[in-house]
């Protein structure tokens, strides 16, 4: 199992900054009253502010680390499944949206689910958290089958998850701060001081400090996604599900969100499942890829192997060709 990486140690190990520079940055954070937990998360930003590293070099360092892990995926690890689908069938409005789906989500890795619009990806995600129940088959989280769970038992299993919805699903009547604080206020016994510290840490991580008093309808698409990501992260989930986190965003914001996901993964080692249409870009940011087409799993394996697939549907989807087995127009 991979352990979380303190960003400072990672930067020093990769020769991006010296140990002395890292010490100075941490001292500056301590002097400004930042807690040690927050320091570990935000030292990269302090190093940039102090001029020891520029932003692009910081991102490059993070990406290099992730790319190394991605290339070694399956070689260096014995992967535990955290979510399993066994012959899952779901029929909606007379259409088999999931057609005897068998799949496994590896623990502590980033898995991307790709496929055509309407191919059943979001339905798959909703089955993972029990928002939908299969007509046939079994969905397991760990060893626990979700079918038949109700009330507190279901709530306990859901407590392992956070889900970033496609539209953010921020509560319109609450500002950004209260939205992020919401799950802590409702589900934990944290004091307001502790809640404030955790909320501000998450807002710093997604670079939304200063936006706490804004309401969702005052945010841009990118800010909305980042605020929703902060709310998803604030509960320290084991499993983070992201439903099209970059849909409708410009390429720069899309890239920023990918770096943010990579940064979060390296720091926390959450199991992440990302539904994405950002093909082939998303292959750089995940260990494992699942291709879903017309309710069936066409491919499930390391991201570096998906490009080599000889399946004509996968090839057409990756290239975006109009000619091929998928007829759109």
């Amino acid at each position, binding site marked *: 199992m991979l352990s979380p990486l303190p960003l400072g140690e990672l930067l020093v190990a990769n020769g991006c900054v010296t140990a002395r520079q890292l010490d100075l940055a941490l001292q500056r954070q301590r002097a400004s009253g930042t807690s040690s937990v927050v320091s570990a998360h935000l030292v990269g930003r302090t190093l940039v502010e102090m001029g020891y590293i520029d932003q692009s070099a910081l991102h490059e360092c993070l990406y290099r680390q992730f790319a190394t892990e991605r290339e070694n995926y399956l070689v260096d690890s014995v992967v535990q499944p955290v979510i399993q689908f066994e012959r899952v069938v779901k029929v909606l409005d007379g259409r088999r949206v999931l057609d005897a789906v068998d799949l496994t989500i590896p623990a502590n890795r980033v898995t991307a689910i790709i496929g055509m619009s309407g191919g059943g990806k979001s339905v798959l995600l*909703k089955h993972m958290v029990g*928002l939908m129940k299969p007509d046939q088959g079994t969905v397991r989280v760990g060893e626990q089958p979700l079918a038949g769970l109700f009330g507190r038992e279901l709530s306990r299993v859901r407590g392992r998850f956070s889900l970033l919805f*496609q539209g953010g*699903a921020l*509560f319109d009547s609450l500002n950004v701060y209260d939205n992020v604080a919401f799950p802590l206020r409702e589900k934990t016994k944290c004091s307001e001081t502790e809640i404030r510290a955790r909320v501000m840490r998450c807002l710093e991580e997604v670079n939304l400090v200063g936006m706490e008093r804004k309401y969702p309808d005052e945010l841009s698409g990118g800010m909305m996604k980042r605020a929703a990501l902060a709310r998803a992260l604030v509960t320290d989930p084991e499993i983070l599900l992201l439903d099209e986190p970059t849909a409708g965003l410009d390429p720069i914001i899309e890239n920023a969100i990918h770096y943010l996901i990579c940064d979060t993964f390296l720091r926390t080692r959450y199991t992440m499942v990302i539904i994405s249409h950002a093909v082939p870009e998303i292959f750089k940011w995940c260990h494992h890829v699942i291709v879903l087409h017309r309710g069936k799993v066409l491919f499930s394996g390391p991201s570096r192997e998906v490009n080599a697939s000889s399946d004509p549907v996968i090839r057409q989807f990756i290239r975006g060709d109009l000619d091929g087995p998928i007829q759109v127009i």
Partner: protein
Amino acid sequence: MFEQVRQLGAASMDAIREMGRMSLFLMEIFVSMLVPPYRWTRFLQQVHFIGIRSLFVVALTAVFAGMVLGLQGYYTLSRFGSEALLGPAVALSIIRELGPVLSGLMVTGRAGSALTAELGIMRIREQIDALEVMGIAPMPFLVVPRIEAGLLVLPLLTLLFDVIGIWGGYLVAVRLLGMSGGTFLGGIESAVEMHDIVTGLIKSVSFGLIVTWICTYKGYYTRRGAEGVSHATTSAVVLSSVLILVCDYFITSIML
């Protein structure tokens, strides 16, 4: 012919299924009411939204309903030389019928439609799903405080309607038509019994449940985007209003 019978059958089955779903929704509400935690803050917010913010419209409706009753009652009773019965006629009409019914209809129009729209938008924007994923049961969090607020607020609004409505009738009868104030109020004192007030209150509690139950149900199960919210809001208001009148008839016939 066969096709028409089939369509009729399908529509009947849909209606029965919908009634079943609504009954299950109501049962789930009652069960959730008994299970802690009790969300007092959200309950008070809903009391403010459904009750306090409906005060003006209920008061306005009450004063004009009372004035119209005063005018029409005087006109009718004077034909039979029974003007002295105007006070009891106005008071009993308001306390037994118009108070609960018009308060229920006003709350449906002002607050019920907003309840449906708010929950409907939360549903289509996946905010209700988000609550479930956070492990927060939406029923006690979103629906129960609204139902409890409706049950408390409607009787209070009805009592307010009764007082203002009778005052409106008094204004017309005594100030405009020159009737004796003592005759008007004395008639009310001798004619109105506790049973009349209790009947009005039972109706208002029932209407409070109907409005909040139907409106939250329609909002909670909204589908198909903005058009779905619009459809849910319209059908919630229409169904609540019709059910208020139907229920009014049955309670009246039982309590007479």
